[in-house]
Structures are given as structure tokens and as C-alpha cells.
């Protein structure tokens, strides 16, 4: 089955065409035939495209709306010199990344009018993300008369118990406004934890305890028991939890009120302060890029060091807390741009956790870059792995299962 995966932002469309079916997915042999991104929709857009065995291609041109972007993507997929399809009718289904599914969507869903209105109901919870996701769906629906499936960032975490998702604020806020922990990056946490279970030969084992660390632009960590999320660090919004590139992560809520008062900030300024000027960038004043920070630290930049120390310390605290939540740990997985590539960050984040069963092998760790690899020492009770994430592949697999009438994984 050929599934087109779309991830639509406010001015971008990321896409992958994935060939998958039940057998190849189970064997991990399903793969992307082509992928790319259209950026700066609404103006002079840039389109990048690469297909198996073809020369990568980059085009610029005016693309005013998502529908035209999708049309251009379909054009490339079927173009004689670079395409991988003879006809767009070869596409069997479309999988859409949707950021927020609220409490309603606990699994991926075939989009019909009812599901669409359910997604629209979640706009209040993700005002920046859900609208472009929906826009992308509407555009694709007009162009491709095939089943469309929504795969949510939040649904994997819907298995969290109330003790993990409730905040200590008046319960009426939960009832009235859905104020609770939802968690994000669910597709990534699910993908790598599933892969971890496969590697350990424990798929379906209800006692398997895995902690997954998704460290990219945004960072989050999830405690997973038997393949089900039991706690995660991001909350009502993607601002809570770990330190991130430009996001603060956990802070005293009173800090926000205090800073707004003494700096005379409005809501939108406080929002920008916490989301765009904080995190690694905010502490270091150098950059939000991990490579630049490691470089600056090696040159003696004290604030770069402080930023990295906070990053690793916070992560370590969460890992240890989740070991407590799970009552031990069988494996810790690092993924995302930082998790897959930054060996020193991995090392510093688990240093000192030997007492709770996590012992790194420095050489294996230093060698692991953007590949699937074990980085724990032989005999470490808890394994430590690097597993590259692949959210698009999971979206394609979910789409394939729903369209084929298979039960959710």
C-alpha cells in the first residue's frame, strides 16, 4: 500500500510517500519512496524533494496556499524524470499528522465529518498547530479521493493515569477548559519504544519498562510500561518539562507572574519570552544549537557550560524520576536530533545513574551517531540505546492499518 504522509505547518508541508503493508511493517522493511518539504507557503516557496535513486531536487516558485503545495508535490511524485508513481491514483491513502487530539482521540482515526469536527474542537488547545493541520487535510481531500487518516501527537499519552495528568489547580479548570497534561511527540515516543521492544524481543510484554528521551528542537521524555505511556514531561502545552532549544521547560509558575510584573510584560511578550528566548539559548546567550553550544563550552564559555549543565541535569532528574514511576527500568532510549547525535549530552545525562541500573559504555556511546546502537555497558541492568525516530513511517503504518481494517497496534 502506498501512503502519502503529510505534516502541514502554518507555512510548510512536509511529505513522505511510504510503501507499507502488514508484513513489511512487521519486518521493518517498509520504506519511504520519496520525501521532501515545501517551505514559505504564501510567498516565494522553496520545494525540496528526493526520491529513491533519483537526483535530489530543489525548486523555488510562488505557492500561495497549501492546496497548491500539495498539487505541486503530487506533480513531482508523478513526474517522468524524478517521480516514483505513474499516476496519482496509485496513492491508496493519506496520513495526516495532527498535533492535538484532546481527550477524544486515543488512537489514530479515519477522518470523516465527525472526526474532523472533533479535531476542530481541539483548536483551543493548539491554536498554532491544529489549524494548519486541518488546512492541509482539506487541501489533500480535494485532490485525493482516498481515505485520509489523522495521527495525533497526543494520543499515545492518553493512557496516562489521572495522577500523572492532573495539575494541582481547581478541578473545575479541567472540567471547563480541559486543563490537564496531554503530552506531545507521541508518535516519536511510540515509534522508538516499539522498536526497543522489538530489539529486546519483548513486544506485547506488559511488564516491559522503557524510558524514551526525544531530544530535538523540542524535548520530552516518556515513561512507558508494556508499550503504554504512563507519564510524560510535556503538559497542557509543549512548554513543560525538559530544557529545550529556546523553551524554558519546568519553571516555578510564580516566576512568570513575578517577571511579568517587574518587567511589565504582556501575555504575548511573556509567551515569546518562555517559548523563544529561554532554554539553551536563554541561559547561554550563545545559541540554541547543540553543536554550537558544545563548541562554545570547549572554548571555555561559562554560560554555554551552564546551559548544557542545566539541560543534562534536568534530563537526569526526569530519568531517575521515571525509573521510580516504573519501579525500575529495562531500557532508556535516546532519539531526536540531539538524542541521536550528541554523545556528550547522553553521557552527562546518565552519569551517576549507575546506582539505579544504568551504566553507559563510553566507547559505544561516542561511536553512536544517527544509527541504531546500544550504548550501555555489558552487564548494565538497564539497557541504553540510540534509536533514530521515524514519525512519518509510523503515521504511514497507522494509516495502512486503519485503511486495511486491522486493529490498532
Amino acid at each position, binding site marked *: 500500500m502506498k501512503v502519502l504522509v503529510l505534516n502541514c505547518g502554518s507555512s510548510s508541508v512536509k511529505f513522505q510517500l511510504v510503501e507499507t503493508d502488514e508484513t513489511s511493517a512487521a519486518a521493518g522493511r517498509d520504506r519511504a519512496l520519496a520525501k521532501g518539504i515545501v517551505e514559505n507557503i*504564501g*510567498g516565494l516557496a522553496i520545494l525540496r524533494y528526493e526520491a529513491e535513486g533519483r537526483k535530489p531536487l530543489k525548486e523555488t516558485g510562488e505557492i*500561495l496556499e497549501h492546496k497548491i503545495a500539495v498539487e505541486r508535490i503530487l506533480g513531482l511524485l508523478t513526474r517522468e524524470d524524478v517521480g516514483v508513481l505513474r499516476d496519482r491514483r496509485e496513492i491508496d491513502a493519506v496520513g495526516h499528522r495532527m498535533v492535538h487530539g484532546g481527550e477524544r482521540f486515543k488512537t489514530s482515526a479515519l477522518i470523516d465529518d465527525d472526526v474532523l469536527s472533533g479535531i476542530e474542537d481541539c483548536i483551543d488547545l493548539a491554536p498554532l498547530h491544529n489549524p494548519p493541520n486541518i488546512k492541509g487535510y482539506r487541501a489533500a481531500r480535494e485532490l485525493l479521493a482516498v481515505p485520509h487518516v489523522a495521527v495525533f501527537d497526543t494520543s499515545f499519552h492518553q493512557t496516562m493515569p489521572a495522577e500523572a495528568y492532573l495539575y494541582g489547580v481547581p478541578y473545575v479548570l479541567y472540567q471547563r477548559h480541559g486543563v490537564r497534561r496531554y503530552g506531545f511527540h507521541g508518535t516519536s515516543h511510540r515509534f522508538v519504544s516499539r522498536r526497543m521492544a522489538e530489539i529486546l524481543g519483548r513486544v506485547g510484554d506488559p511488564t516491559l519498562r522503557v524510558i524514551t528521551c526525544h531530544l530535538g528542537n523540542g524535548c520530552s521524555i516518556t515513561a512507558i510500561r508494556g508499550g503504554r505511556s504512563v507519564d510524560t514531561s510535556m503538559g497542557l502545552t509543549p512548554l513543560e518539562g525538559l530544557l529545550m532549544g*529556546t523553551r524554558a521547560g519546568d519553571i516555578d509558575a510564580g516566576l512568570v507572574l513575578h517577571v511579568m510584573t517587574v*518587567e511589565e*510584560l504582556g501575555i*504575548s*511578550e511573556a509567551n*515569546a519570552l518562555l517559548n*523563544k528566548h529561554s532554554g539553551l539559548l536563554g541561559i547561554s546567550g550563545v545559541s540554541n544549537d547543540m553543536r554550537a553550544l558544545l563548541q562554545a563550552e570547549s572554548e571555555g564559555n561559562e554560560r554555554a557550560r551552564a546551559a548544557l549543565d542545566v539541560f543534562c541535569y534536568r534530563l537526569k532528574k526526569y530519568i531517575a524520576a521515571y525509573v521510580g514511576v516504573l519501579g525500575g527500568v529495562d531500557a532508556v532510549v535516546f532519539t531526536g536530533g540531539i538524542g541521536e547525535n550528541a554523545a556528550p549530552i547522553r553521557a552527562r545525562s546518565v552519569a551517576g545513574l549507575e546506582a539505579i541500573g544504568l551504566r553507559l559504555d563510553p566507547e559505544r556511546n561516542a561511536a553512536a551517531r544517527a544509527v541504531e546502537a546500544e550504548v550501555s555497558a555489558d552487564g548494565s541492568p538497564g539497557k541504553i540505546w540510540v534509536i533514530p525516530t521515524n514519525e512519518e513511517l509510523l503515521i504511514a503504518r497507522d494509516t495502512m492499518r486503519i485503511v486495511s481494517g486491522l486493529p490498532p497496534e
Partner: protein
Amino acid sequence: MAIRTVGIVGGGTMGQGIAVACAGAGLDVLLVEKTPELGQEALAGVAEALDRDIAKWRRTESEKRAILARIGLAEGLEALEPTDLVVEAVSEDLELKISLFQQLDRLVSPDDVLATNTSTLSVTEIAARTSRPERVIGLHFLQPVPKVPLVEVVRGLKTGDDTYRRALEFVRVLGKTGIEVFEYPGYVTTRVILPFLNEAMYVVMEGVASAEAVDTSMRLGYGLPVGPLQLADRMGLDEVMRWMQYLFDELGDVKYRPCPLLRKMIRAGHLGVKTGRGFFEYDAAGHPKPVSGEGKV
């Protein structure tokens, strides 16, 4: 038709602010100034304003770069031919504005909307001197433009419904709320706020309460972010005076009579924040100096 490229005539404080609001919303801007030097000055002003925003965490360095990249300087009104909407933001001089609109009328597509940022002059009168009065409208941005989320969308007598809808959509794209106003002196915002400021001055003049007490009462009593007298200081007392006089002359109602205390302060050179002293005193950064006595926060 979606608005993608906006022409702005005049690179003063207003023109700069409107340019930032447009570019910040992802629109391309062509800014026209009288000379290349003035154009460069306008761009420098925009860059400084963006740096102040960054210092206050309102924007990031990359947002600044993106905004500056979207603002182009144009030489002469001819360059505005490809724009979808033109906003005129030159000084409040009727003959100057009419001459500009007559040139624009000849240069840009007859379908394009021409907007004036006037706050005192008549949209109807400017429109009447063009061949497309139904496509002329007023857009009253408030200072500082990037921060104030309101625009008065001012309909002249002949402004068409389609023009109004396009102007309102433009305001929405800027992330601001537009309100429909039918041309009348002071529109809504100026007309309602000025008598409030003026009355606060009368209260001080009549010895009912101190300036600090008046501002504190109105701030705390009605949950306003700033009191009327400090607001007047920020606007500039000479500006407030000019406005009151304008409303008084246009509408002839004594309720718009400028407070004699206001007149006296202007004669003393106490113009508000910009001179360091108005109803309150201000430091070089424009922050109010502490006031002694009760009511101090």
C-alpha cells in the same frame, strides 16, 4: 484577492510602524520616501525599534531578519504599481495627501484599495479628488502600531462595501481587530479618550485631587493599565491640545473645550514624556520618576 504586497507612502514613525506590522505578518512591503536618505533613515528606525523589541523579548533575532528582509525601499510612487494595497502615512497636510492620492490613482491598478492613515482629515474629501472614491478608505492605526491591536477602518461617504471588506481582511491579516467607523471628527478612539483626559485635567486644576491621586483612582478604580494624566503625558500635551482644539472647532460643543491648565502647561514647555515633564516627571528612558506623598505604588 488576497493582499500580499503592501505599499506604504511615508517612512515616519507611523509608516515605520505599519511597515513592521505588515512585514511581521508575512506581507511584503514597499516603502516609499521622498529621498533615498530618508528611506535609509526609515529602515534604520525600523531596525532600532526591532532591537528594542528583542531586548524586551517581544521578537527574536531571526524574526528581525525576516521582517527587515520583507521591507523594500522604493523610489517614486511608480514602484507601487505591483502592490495590492497602498497605505499613505505622510504628514497631516490635506493638499499633500490629495496630490499623492491623485498620483497613486493614475499609477496603481484601478481595483487596488488606497488607504490613508489620516486621523483628522476627511477621507471623503481625499476620495472625491480621485477617480475611484469607492476604493478609498481610512485606516487609523494607533501608536505604537506594532503593539496596539486595534485599527479604526474609516469609511468615507463613497467607500464601497468591497473596499471595506478588503481593508478589514488586511487588518485581520496583521493580527489586529478592525472596527467599522463612519467618518466623523475623532472617529471613536480619539473622540472618547480626549474628553476623559481633559476632564482629569480639570479635576487637578480645580484642586479636587492631585495628579497622582487622579491617575491612581482611575487605574485602580477601573482597572486601567495607565491613568489619564500619564497617558496624556505619553501622547504629548501639545498633541492633546491640538486634538481638543480640533474637536472643539469641528463639533463646536463646549464639552471639547481644552482645559486652561493644559494650555498653561504647554506655554511652560511641559509637554509630557518627550520633555521630561508634564503632569509627572520622567527620566531619560521615559519612565515616570517616583512621586512623593500618598497614592505612591
